[in-house]
Each structure stands twice: as structure tokens, then as C-alpha cells.
């Protein structure tokens, strides 16, 4: 059993290594045809001359050489245009992104020709290795029950060097994905056929991301099923959150594209889905007939009615740990790191500021966008709407949600984004705190203050603080993962939806010795 695990680890690491190193494989040569396929007519017009001299049909060993040449002619052309004051011809697109698309067109040789082999050696090995590593735990971990042995004794789950390396790897991957996609050209090529089969289009970097996201969540869900198999709540929850990732976030949008409908993740609610009310999206939906209009209405209904109503009945958990993609990854890939969330009062204070500021930012940005959309202006109070959106997209959408949100898992816990940044979580948190039927009930006087609940709260809630004084937990940040209840050795905590009356008890009585309790001095 143990040797299967070790072999699995070796296979997994081989797959991961290959997946990483593949950036250095293959060759690249851009044809006139590929050049025309990727660029817009305006760009072709601007760049054709320079490109013929110093880009087209040149053979490159690495993508970044091609990208560097392209960026050079791109800058040069723009400078010339600006010097000529041909403002309408100046190009504002991101040359890094175009480089990525060009590199993919330019690829030839060992990676492109043997895509399926490379796919198997990287993704296949990764999945098979991970499963071989995890499945023996069914036996090795013994009977169903809490399996937290050695979490603080292992390098990887106790912020050892492996955790730091993992963090930098994840951060690095996100930086490449968002800002230097041409470095991932070969990885995108590997999933090209999958994308073609689903949507009929070649893979983009976002397809690669979505594919990896789904595969990783699915594989790590297996780990969850093994680890928490004593708890039907955790089993059902993990199954459902993966279902939403696979179906709603990954397959349905791709299939929509195949049928010439707009790409849409039906569960991704504003303001997490911050660009839903952007001009281009609204225009796109309106232009796409009944289906597009339905999507527009659905998006509004989702954010304005379904989100608050469901949060009233079930707390924000219905979304955060049952439906959401970010939550889904945090609950699967991030589960081994849940203990790293900061439980200090300072962190709680910081959290309330940061998450609500992001919410305000999202609301202001959306409001400005809609105002501009209605009025036909592109400025609000002298600030360019596009600039606000770009800033939000860069700071919040990419850096906070992606680079920090996932990259920080191994050191700062799996819910950094959800806790400190997600505007949808903030929105639902307000409902959960003030108008909801959800609470974590504390079981009278049974708490022994051991601290398992607080330690394993991924949202950094000091659950024990409430449990040991017999107080229900109605914190806005609780995503209802249910792990506090699972790890409690004395059966003290229960997530439940019940009547609002009595939900919040600020001065609880701990059962056991009524007449000495602080809350009701008059009882004796």
C-alpha cells in the first residue's frame, strides 16, 4: 500500500515536471497565414512590413524569442504611428496576449505532432499519480473518522519548504497565465483537441485554465471523499460543488459556444462575476437573440433575487461551499491547508475592511459602467470608466482572486480570496449576518475548548470563542463548509437553518449551572 503511494507520488511529480518543462520544448515558425489568422486587419496593416522583415518564417527555439520580436515590432509600429500622429491606427491591445496566440499558430515539431502523448505524460501522469497517492488512504487511514494526524508535523501542511515551493509555483503559474500567456503555449496546445471536441474552437489560455481547474478539483475531490467519508454532509457537499464546476463552469459554456450561443457560466453571480454588467458583455448578450436576453435576465435575477433569497434560507454556504468555483477549489485542492487561516482579532478586523472595500469598489465600478452605458458617455466624474474597469480587473480580478487567492493556499490558507476579497461573499455575508435562518448552533455546555474547530476553520473564525460560551455562531464570513462540526470531538457544533427568533444570542447561558451564570443573575 505504502509503495503504491510512493510510486504514485513519483508518477505525479514526473507529470508535473513534464507539464512545467514542456514550455521549453518544440519549435516555432510563424507563417503569413498564421499571422493573418491571429491579427485583426488593422494590426496586419500596421505590422505587415515590419513582420516580413523580422518575424515571419523565422525559426524560433522558444516562444519568448518570438514574443520578444513581436513586441519589438509592435512597439516600433506604435511609435511610428504616434510620431505620424495617426491616432486612429495606434494599437491598444496587449502584445503579450497576441504573442501567445501567434506562438500557438507558429508551433511545430515534437509537441504539436505528439500532442496526445504529451497530454498523457503530463495530465495523465498527474491524475494517475495523484490517485495512486490518495486511494491507498482508504485502507491506510483506517476506519472512517477524523484524519488530521500529523498535519502540523508534515513539511507540506506545516509551512515547510515544500509548502513555500508550492506557493511560488502556483503564483508563478498564475502570473504566466494572466500576463505572459505565450510561455504556456505548449500547455495550451495539449488541450487543443479537447477544446475542439467540446466547443469546436481551438484552446485558449482560459480553456487550459478551466480544464486544469476542473481536473484538479475532480482529483482532489476524491481525496475529500476518502478523508471525510464518515460525514455525509462533507460527501454530499463535495459532490455537489464538483458537479457545478464540471457542468456549469466547464461543460455548459463550451457547449453553448458550439451552438453559437454566448459563453456563460450560469452560476457565476455578480459581483464575483464582475464583468457581467460591462458594456461589451451586455451588448454581446443583447445581440444574441432570445438566448442572450435570457442570459441577461438570468444574470440579473441571480444577483438580485436568487442570491439574497437563498442566503436568507441557507446562509451563504449554499453558494460559497456548494456551488462556487473558487470555493470548490478551496475545498478540494485547498483542504490540506485550511489550518493556515489567521485566527487573530487583528485578521478579523482587517478582513472586515478589505472585503467590504472590495464590495464598494465592485459596486461603484458597476454603477459607473451602467451609467456610462445608459448615458453613452465613457467618463464618470472625469474618470474613464474603462480605466476603472481595467484597474479592478487587474488588481482584484487577476492579482487578488487568482495570484493571491490560489497562490497563497499553502502558506496563508485556502480561503484568502473568499475571506478578504470576494465581493459576492461580502454581499451574502451581510445577509447572513443580519437576515438569515442559518447559524452554527452550539450544543449547550459540551465544549471543552480544545480548539479543533478554530484551527480548522478556513475562514479564520475563532469558533471556539463562541462554542465555549454557548453562543451560536452567526458570523458573516462563515462559508458553511461544516468542518468545525466534523472535527469537534464532543459533538458541540451543528450547522442548521432554523427560525430567526433566538438565532442570535449575545448573552448565552452555558448549561450546567444555571444560577451561577452571568446572563440571568435573577434566576436564584
Amino acid at each position, binding site marked *: 500500500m505504502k509503495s503504491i503511494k510512493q510510486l504514485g507520488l513519483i508518477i505525479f511529480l514526473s507529470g508535473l515536471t513534464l507539464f512545467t518543462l514542456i514550455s521549453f520544448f518544440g519549435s516555432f515558425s510563424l507563417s503569413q497565414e498564421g499571422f493573418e489568422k491571429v491579427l485583426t486587419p488593422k494590426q496586419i496593416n500596421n505590422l505587415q512590413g515590419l513582420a516580413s522583415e523580422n518575424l515571419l518564417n523565422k525559426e524560433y527555439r522558444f516562444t519568448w524569442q518570438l514574443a520578444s520580436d513581436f513586441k519589438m515590432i509592435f512597439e516600433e509600429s506604435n511609435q511610428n504611428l504616434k510620431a505620424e500622429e495617426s491616432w486612429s491606427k495606434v494599437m491598444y491591445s496587449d502584445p503579450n496576449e497576441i504573442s501567445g496566440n501567434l506562438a500557438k499558430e507558429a508551433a511545430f515539431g515534437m509537441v504539436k505532432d505528439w500532442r496526445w502523448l504529451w497530454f498523457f505524460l503530463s495530465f495523465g501522469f498527474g491524475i494517475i499519480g495523484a490517485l495512486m497517492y490518495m486511494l491507498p488512504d482508504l485502507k491506510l487511514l*483506517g*476506519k*472512517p*473518522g*477524523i484524519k*488530521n*494526524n*500529523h*498535519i*502540523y508535523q508534515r513539511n507540506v501542511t506545516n509551512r515547510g519548504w515544500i509548502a513555500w515551493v508550492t506557493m511560488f509555483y502556483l503564483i508563478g503559474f498564475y502570473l504566466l497565465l494572466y500576463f505572459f500567456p505565450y510561455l504556456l503555449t505548449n500547455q495550451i496546445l495539449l488541450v487543443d483537441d479537447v477544446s475542439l471536441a467540446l466547443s469546436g474552437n481551438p484552446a485558449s489560455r482560459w480553456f487550459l485554465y478551466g480544464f486544469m481547474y476542473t481536473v484538479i478539483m475532480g482529483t482532489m475531490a476524491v481525496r475529500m471523499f476518502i478523508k471525510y467519508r464518515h*460525514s*455525509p*454532509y462533507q*460527501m*454530499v457537499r463535495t459532490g455537489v460543488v464538483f458537479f457545478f464546476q464540471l457542468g456549469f463552469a466547464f461543460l455548459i459554456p463550451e457547449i453553448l459556444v458550439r451552438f453559437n450561443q454566448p459563453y456563460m457560466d450560469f452560476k457565476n453571480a455578480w459581483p464575483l462575476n464582475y464583468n457581467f454588467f460591462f458594456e461589451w458583455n451586455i451588448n454581446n448578450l443583447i445581440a444574441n437573440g432570445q438566448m442572450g436576453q435570457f442570459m441577461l435576465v438570468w444574470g440579473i435575477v441571480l444577483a438580485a433575487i436568487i442570491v439574497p433569497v437563498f442566503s436568507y434560507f441557507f446562509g451563504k454556504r449554499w453558494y460559497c461551499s456548494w456551488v462556487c468555483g473558487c470555493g470548490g477549489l478551496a475545498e478540494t485542492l485547498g483542504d490540506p491547508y485550511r489550518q493556515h487561516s489567521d485566527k*487573530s*482579532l487583528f485578521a478579523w478586523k482587517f478582513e472586515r475592511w478589505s472585503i467590504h472595500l472590495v464590495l464598494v469598489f465592485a459596486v461603484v465600478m458597476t454603477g459607473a459602467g451602467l451609467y456610462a452605458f445608459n448615458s453613452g458617455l465613457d467618463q464618470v466624474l472625469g474618470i474613464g470608466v474603462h480605466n476603472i474597469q481595467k484597474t479592478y480587473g487587474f488588481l482584484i480580478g487577476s492579482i487578488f482572486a487568482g495570484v493571491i487567492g490560489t497562490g497563497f493556499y499553502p502558506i496563508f490558507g485556502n480561503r484568502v480570496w473568499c475571506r478578504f476579497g470576494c465581493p459576492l461573499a461580502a454581499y451574502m455575508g451581510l445577509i447572513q449576518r443580519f437576515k438569515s435562518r442559518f447559524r452554527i448552533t452550539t*450544543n*449547550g*455546555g*459540551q465544549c*471543552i*475548548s*480544545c*480548539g*479543533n474547530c478554530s*484551527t480548522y476553520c478556513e475562514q479564520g473564525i475563532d469558533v*471556539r*470563542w463562541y462554542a465555549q460560551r*454557548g453562543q451560536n455562531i452567526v458570523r458573516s464570513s462563515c462559508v458553511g463548509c461544516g468542518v468545525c*462540526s*466534523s*472535527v469537534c*470531538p*464532543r*459533538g458541540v457544533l*451543528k*450547522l*442548521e437553518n*432554523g*427560525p430567526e*427568533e*433566538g438565532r442570535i*444570542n*449575545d*448573552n*448565552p*447561558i*452555558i*448549561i*450546567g*449551572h*444555571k*444560577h*451561577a451564570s*452571568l*446572563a*440571568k*443573575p435573577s434566576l*436564584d
Partner: protein
Amino acid sequence: MKSSHTVIIGNGISGVTTARHLRKRSNDPITIISGESDHFYSRTALMYIFMGHMRYKDTKPYEDSFWKKNKINLRKDWVTKIDFENQLVHFHQGNPMKYDKLVLATGSKPNKFGWTGQESLGVQGLYSLQDLESMEAAMKRGVKKAVIVGGGLIGVEMAEMLQSRGVEVCFLVRESRFWGNVLPREEAEMIGHHMVKDHHVDLRLEKNLDSIQADEEGWVKSVKIKETGEIIECDFLGLTPGVSPNIDFLKDSGLDLDRGIMVNEYLETNKENVYALGDCAQFLRPPGKNRRNIEQVWYTGRMMGECLGKTLSGNKTPYKPGVWFNSAKFFDIEYQTYGWVFPRQEEDQTTFFWKHPKKDIALRLVFKTQSNQLLGVNAFGIRLRHQLLDEILSSKGSAREFLRYFKDYVFDPEFFTNHGREIVKEYNQEFEDFVELKSKSWNRIKTVLNKNLR
């Protein structure tokens, strides 16, 4: 009124609860003394530190800044002697400290019954942070096989701890069943079976320790069993046959001692302005029917602290605990108990026991034969709502009522199977009764829960 300095010896749950409840009612100076740790930590979580579930700092229920914020002075030192005449506490290192009121919350220490070789290295109980450290030191030296003596709650915790580090465990239990002096036969057998079958503990029932042998370095190498004379080799010996009050430093001080520090219902000792509570206190009269005169449970320590905090603030309050409850976890089996369930029932009592045919899930009710009044409940693998149990037991509700509304009482997480149907069916068959299981009603639950609201 002149402010008075309360000095509390011991920073466990009893001492700390006393300090907190006093602080909520008074601004007078409070000092808590401990030689064991800088701050209050949860003793019950020691096992989780060892198993790697938590770090020491995670077991501290309050942030370190809490004490300063609440103006509770902390002093880390061991107390060597108390001068009751001059109201002075003497320390191992620092200067003596004057008190106006003294609270003794010194807890307990593991029992050692004078076995030959009991002072060998690698022989220890599990009570304090220092015990945990010495266990870690033993692990560093290398432990392959351990023997544990004493079949109670700490013993089973120690077994789980050692097994998590790959140590083979042999468990010597004096009774004919695990925890047989507390649990009825069926439950004790179920737990024993779980330990042996699912966790491969070498459980030896009705076995007592005879003597301990050490190697030339003085480290334990084997134990001899009294009944059979068998020698079991081991390189670690856990002694967990209960604990007794930690009062050695008070001998001959004039304080009235027996097994513990003698106190009345107000937790007052024979010395004026000196109080004792928690594990180290012994009541002149047990605090209630069926209760012992030394209560060494987390919960009772906390409740005594609540009372004493109130008393010290000038509002004299007797310790009169309500319905008994307790909980534990035996490897994977959670256990809760409410009211009184003893290994054997009295003549006018009847018991009902249900066990899941396959899993380690069980429920026991004890009730009065004539009136059907519910007296106690044992639950294994089923979580129950404390408030509701407290209510039904203190209001003398019936076993029938409990079963009828069983779904209200269950506190398991959502999506867990509720076994109410099988349980009620078996009860009806066994007692030729017609209890009808109701569906869960928030209205009913709410009425009880909201009684406890301000």
C-alpha cells in the same frame, strides 16, 4: 470599599473561569499563578498536539493579549508553600506574594500506586504540558511498544496518541470490560471491540500491573502482570489509572485536607478567605444525588469557577450543579451522556439499549419502571441536543416523550441518517408500547432553546 487582591493558584479551566467571572463583576486586582504554562491552554487538547492536529498555541482559548486587556496578572512560577498566617504565597524562584483572597485550583496528578520501578524513565501519566514534553522526548529516543495501565478516558487517549506515531499498544485494564466501572456491559464491549478490531490495540482485561523492570540506563524495558506473571516487553509505560488532587505542597500547612482540599458548598476551605475548586477540591458533602465528593471533569471545574467568581465578587453562591452530563471520544466513537446511567440499574429502574446492526452507533435509556421517567441517556455515534436533554431530565419527562420527539433531540450534522425509526420500533417491541415517532419540529426545539435566552 478597599480593593482586595485575589490570587489564584492554577491556570486551568477552574482557576481561569473563576478569574473571568470575577473580573466581569469586579475591578479588583487578580493574579493567576502557574508553573506549568505562561497562558491558559486546553488540557483536553494535549492529545491533539501530540498527534499533530494542532500546535500548542492553537490550544489557547484566549489570545495572549486577552489577559492584559482584562487586567488579569499572570505569573509563571511554582508555588512551594503558603503562609496562611501572613497571607503570603511563596515561590520556587520569585518573591513571595501577598493575597487578600486565595483560590486553590491546582488540579490533579496522575495516580501511581507504589509499583516497584514506577520511577523508571519512560514511565509517566498524561496530565500536563510537561507530561507531553516527556512523551515527545521518549518518542525521540525511539518507542516501538508501549504498555498502558488503567482503562479510563486518558488511557484510551494515550493509546490513540501512541498509535498515531506507529507505536504498538498493549492496554491493561483492571475491570472485566473497558471503563467497566462507568459504562454498562454493551457499551463497554462495543468500545473494547472498536479498540481491538478497528485499531488493533492489544487489550488485556482483568489484568493488573505487578511490577516494572528497567534496563541499565534506568529506562523501562518490561512490565510484569500480576494475574499471570507474564512479562510484557515495552519501551514506554503509560500510567492512567485515574488522577488524584495535586495537594502535596499543602501538607501540614494547617489546611484541612483529606484526598483533596476540604471545601463546603461555597468552595470555602477551613481557612478564612481561602477557597478551593476543581480537581483538587473535595466536598464535605457531595454536591448532589449520585455525585461524588471529588469531581474531576472539565465541565465541573468550569461550573465551580462560575460559582466562585460570583462568590468572590460579594454575591455568595453555592455550587449546585444541574443535570449531570459528560462527553468523550474513544478513537472514532463519540460519546455523550446526560443524567445518570450506571453499569447496573437499581431495582425500580429499567433500561433500553439499541445498537446499529453494523456500525458503532448506540443509544441507551434508563428510566423508572413505574412512571417511565427518563433518568439518563448514553449516546454513541449520535450527537444529542444538550439543552433539550437538560430540559427533559430536569423536568422529569418520560422516556416515551424522549423517543416520540427523538428527531428534535438529535444534533448530528445535516444529511446524517436519523435512526429514530429503528430505535422507536425496537422500544415498542421490547416494551409492548405504542410510541409514535414525530417528525422534527423547530417550534418545539425553539421553545426550549429560547428559555435560555436573556
